[in-house]
């Protein structure tokens, strides 16, 4: 009897001891989490509920994104690029302007698409409801969703017909806004600034290499390409060009970017017929106006 009691008390104290660090670490966030567990997501007719996603998050996501959603899961040290910190709510793939929250649909699409050349897989096997619930769960980690609204998605006009003029004009845009400084004159990610690129946490990062045929991180449709240089990829060196590229020019640039890919496509054919040479970086900067 005596030993029994002693054993029980030992066990109980062990449990308390083991549990206490967890409680301390998560104190503030746990309190906030309780407040924000009612978070919802709305994707079309679907409504996602954060509470419904808890088990799925623990099963599929926690390993990298961590208990607190701060990107410090147990696998995080071996993952590059690093998992997102959901507390900051800064996301690469958005339809909204730089510096704004993404829409629920943006996060929903990222879950299904995954992020190529990173450890984030495609979760397309999940049901839509599971993904909607997980979007709500992801949002419940950040106080930003309590005070901010997602940005207004940028408008993408209907895609025009590809023409030789447009491909040529696209190259002029590539030259003018100096995409080649990071992505290189042939799209090989070997521009003069490529070697020193870092993300917002000062961790080294490489620019997208167009010549490898790898899928761009935020999708590979013409619309996805258009969107990416108009919104920028927040958290990375890729800025938004929305103030400097007109909608018409943006389509031209999309067509030109296609000529850099290894796959056969219409734009590549046109470039070949035109005998298009890579841009010359030395010709790019015009002499400074003397003041």
């Amino acid at each position, binding site marked *: 009897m005596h030993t029994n009691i002693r054993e029980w008390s030992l066990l109980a104290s062990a449990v308390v001891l083991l549990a206490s660090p967890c409680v301390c670490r998560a104190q503030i966030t746990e309190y906030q989490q309780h407040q924000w567990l009612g978070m919802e997501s709305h994707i079309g007719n679907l409504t996602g509920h954060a509470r419904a996603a808890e088990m799925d998050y623990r099963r599929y996501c926690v390993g990298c994104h961590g208990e607190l959603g701060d990107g410090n899961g147990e696998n995080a040290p071996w993952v590059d690029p690093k998992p997102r910190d959901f507390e900051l709510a800064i996301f690469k793939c958005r339809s909204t302007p730089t510096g704004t929250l993404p829409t629920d649909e943006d996060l929903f699409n990222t879950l299904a698409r995954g992020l190529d050349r990173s450890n984030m897989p495609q979760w397309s096997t999940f049901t839509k409801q599971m993904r909607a619930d997980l979007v709500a769960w992801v949002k419940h980690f950040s106080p930003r969703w309590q005070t901010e609204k997602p940005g207004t998605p940028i408008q993408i006009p209907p895609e025009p017909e590809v023409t030789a003029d447009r491909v040529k004009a696209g190259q002029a845009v590539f030259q003018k806004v100096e995409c080649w400084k990071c992505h290189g004159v042939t799209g090989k990610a070997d521009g003069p600034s490529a070697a020193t690129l*870092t993300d917002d946490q000062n961790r080294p990062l490489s620019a997208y290499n167009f010549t490898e045929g790898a899928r761009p991180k935020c999708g590979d449709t013409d619309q996805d390409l258009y969107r990416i240089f108009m919104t*920028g990829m927040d958290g990375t060196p890729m800025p*938004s*060009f929305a*103030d400097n590229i007109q909608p018409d020019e943006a389509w031209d640039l999309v067509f030109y970017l296609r000529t850099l890919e290894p796959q056969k496509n219409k734009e590549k054919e046109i470039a070949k017929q035109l005998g298009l040479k890579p841009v010359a970086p030395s010709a790019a900067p015009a002499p400074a106006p003397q003041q």
Partner: protein
Amino acid sequence: MKAHYKAAAMTSALLLLAFGLLCSTRSVNAAGEGKIAGKVKLDGTPPHMKGIDMSKDPYCVKQHENSPAHLENVMVGQGGGLGNVVLYISEGLSGAGASQVPSQEPVFDQKNCMYTPHVLAMDVNQKFKVTTSDQTTHNIHPLPNALAGNIPWNKSQPPGAPPIETSWKTEEVAIPVKCNIHPWMHGYFVVVKGPHATTDDKGSYTIENVPAGSYTVTAWQEEYGTQTQKVTVAAGKPATADFTFKAK
């Protein structure tokens, strides 16, 4: 009937007079505001400011042919005066004094592949402009703490691009700014509430329009952090507060 007109004319004249008086007393109040002035010094040997290798962008190299570029983290002038120090009132401002947002728009220019000024102080919600004088593309990438209220953004500014006009929502000392294309480009936005000043290249500063009262003045320098001092401002009189940072 005529009497009525007379009465109306008299009342409006009186009203005008009263209004005029009100305005003049208000301007007297404004004139009664004091200032805080002083000098910020660096004690000890200033650290060596390394030269910058801009060879990755020939345009930038060309701009510095005759004046080699160097880092600007610690700018020491005559007599140890420390430049680019931001001085602001961290305690003692009344709600009204702290909520007046200046209408003038400070400018943060990208010139010769450097930030001019290197440190730009501004009020919460004060509009400011980011401009480019360069014939090379920059991206302007401020990195505030997203959880404290200001949100990071990243925009391209190719040659001839129009200014970016924006503001910050909350106080933050300080927001680092960088250009990913030119990794040496590094500066700061300092967002404070109420009157503030930045030291010139001799380390001198004047905080204008400080109402009479007792305050805590904070001096911020990017390498040496902050220092505070209690200052009492009497109406219409300048108060003095000098600061000395120790070289590391």
